[in-house]
């Protein structure tokens, strides 16, 4: 009876804590007001020495393979700068979980060199407050991947999704000069990165490309694939399928290939999950626009190291007089896939 009395509340609390563990795309909620990508996207990071056993703390917005690339970049950054770094993934995937991680960082401020966080909800005041408390305690705070309130951080490192969408649109315009109707696919179309990517795509591709529908799948791979099949039936006149989130591309490619419609329908997408690579190599996917999360990690370690040392000149040089670093994107087609794959292999990455 005692066991039962204890187990009920314990299990209920476990349920509440673990509920909502579903992974989210690691690239949500990007800012839309960034300038075009910098030509010097990957500056050489001069070694600047360690920081007395302290480590740069990276806090994610959720847990997904996207963060493996960031972690690989962190390791490169530590090797280049001599600083140490750790990643804490927000496995709860919610705002409260992220606030908890930021609060823990404040508790451990004596061992934290600085904090680099991917802000889950830019409008969440609790996250902004936790970031401000860290800064007030003398801990440098920067954001990566998804920006937060400007007053709560020193700088942002990430992708300009509007520009990324524009670059993809321009490439598609070049590859398919006649234009065509397209359906887009995404987990949640209200997400800032989805809105920016599709707005950028429209700007880059021009008026010859007409959007007929945006399908949402709530990050469910089965639903995403079912949406692709529905689109091929309901919008048979659409000649382009556009995958906006990382898992959409492989599922679209596979569906079009299975239905033997590669001669009529082109698949274009963002990012390069591991199972997209064979579809890129054989031309099933016409083109993809790949972020550089590796650079979030690499440059994040370097910037935090400079800020923690009070090297203002070094930090200003890295930021180029702005408060953000656009790490840029790679536009990958079958033609330049071998070089792209070689780059992944060199970094020890299975995807990006």
């Amino acid at each position, binding site marked *: 009876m005692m*066991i*039962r009395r204890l*187990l*009920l509340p314990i*299990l*209920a609390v*476990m*349920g509440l*804590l*673990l*509920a909502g*563990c*579903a*992974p989210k795309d690691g690239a949500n909620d990007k800012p839309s007001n960034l300038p075009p990508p910098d030509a010097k996207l990957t500056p050489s990071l001069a070694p600047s020495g360690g920081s007395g056993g302290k480590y740069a703390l990276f806090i994610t917005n959720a*847990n*997904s*393979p996207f963060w*493996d690339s960031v972690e690989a970049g962190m390791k490169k950054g530590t090797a280049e700068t001599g600083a140490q770094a750790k990643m804490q993934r927000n*496995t709860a995937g919610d705002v409260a979980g992220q606030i908890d991680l930021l609060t823990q960082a404040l508790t451990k401020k004596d061992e934290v060199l600085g904090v680099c966080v991917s802000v889950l909800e830019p409008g969440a005041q609790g996250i902004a407050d936790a970031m401000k408390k860290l800064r007030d305690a003398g801990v440098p705070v920067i954001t990566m991947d998804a920006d937060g309130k400007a007053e709560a951080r020193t700088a942002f490192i990430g992708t300009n999704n509007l520009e990324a969408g524009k670059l993809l649109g321009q490439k598609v315009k070049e590859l398919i000069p006649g234009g065509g109707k397209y359906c887009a696919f995404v987990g949640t179309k209200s997400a800032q990165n989805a809105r920016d990517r599709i707005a950028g795509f429209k700007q880059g591709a021009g008026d010859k490309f007409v959007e*007929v*529908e*945006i*399908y*949402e*799948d*709530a*990050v*469910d*791979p*089965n639903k995403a*694939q*079912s*949406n692709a*099949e*529905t689109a*091929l*039936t*309901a*919008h*048979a006149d659409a000649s382009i399928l556009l995958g906006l989130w990382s*898992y959409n591309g*492989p*599922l679209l490619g*596979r569906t079009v290939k*299975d*239905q033997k419609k590669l001669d009529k329908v082109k698949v274009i997408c963002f990012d390069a*999950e*591991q*199972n997209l690579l*064979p579809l890129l190599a054989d031309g099933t996917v016409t083109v993809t626009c790949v972020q550089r999360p590796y650079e979030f990690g690499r440059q994040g370690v370097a910037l935090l190291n400079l800020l923690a040392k009070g090297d203002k000149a070094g930090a200003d040089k890295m930021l180029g007089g702005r408060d953000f670093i656009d790490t840029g994107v790679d536009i990958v087609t079958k033609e330049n896939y071998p070089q792209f794959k070689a780059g992944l292999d060199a970094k020890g990455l*299975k995807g990006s």
Partner: protein
Amino acid sequence: MSGLRRVFRAREWTLVLAVVAVVLAITVLGRGQQFASENNRTQLLRQIALLGTFAVGEAVVIIAGGIDLSVGSVIALGAMLSALAINRVAGAQPDAGLAGVLVALGAGALLGLLTGLFHSLLVTKLRLPPFIATLSTLAGLRSVSQLITNSAPVPVQIERFKWLADGTHAMYFFVAAAIAVGLLLGCTRAGRGLRAMGGNEDAARLSGLNTARLKTLAYGVCGVLAGIAGVLYASRSGQGDCRLGVGYELRAIAACVVGGCSLSGGTGSLSGVVLGVVLMETVLNGIGLVISRNATMWEGLVTGVVVVLAVTLNALRRER
């Protein structure tokens, strides 16, 4: 005629008519040709088979008076484990043999069986309410499915594995599951016991039924079918993925309720659940065809309306 009536009682005929009405509506709204196209037929049958495979398992638990909220997480973990298992056994050889596929199916089924047994233990020995017992595994197994590969999907490039859910092959599993559950519920003492326990557990126990064993059977069947469904989903998307199955327990429960199962137990039929699955998937398919803009946004609303209508009709029928 009386035999046919036994198979399709009034409630099931209502569901048949509802399916026919949906198809007619799709046709009247000018999408009949697309609905009947080969690609759409394949898609619809596959979706029916995938949902149906674990919905009939959920029905066994509901008829027995319980509930299983963990099926979505079992699907995710089953998908991950089957992908890891087949890659381990068959390596990266695209032409790997049948053994690898059987190992993958076995991994999913075993996971489901163990989960079912764990639920049974919690419910019968610790006397936890089924809602709490399965809520804990809903959260816990999702977490495990993320932890085993750090949330990374597990791609499978093996053609035989892809075959499992290619085209309408998943229908074989659904039909087999439906026949097995139909025989269990309709032709065995255990099936009658499950229904009696769902109607009144105390009365069933006092009349000599081993209710603990019956609960083990119900949760075991539900777990195994959810695990196999996980393998099918992995086959379909070509990878084990911990993002699979979120909220699928609610879809299964909704299909059961639409099919005439009472959440208080004791009531429900296999044919009703199968028709419930067919109705729900046909409605979702029709939305995608008929609504040309923001179709996915309408799905939740329309599904909700279908569930409410079905439950209301069932309630009215019982009052008569």
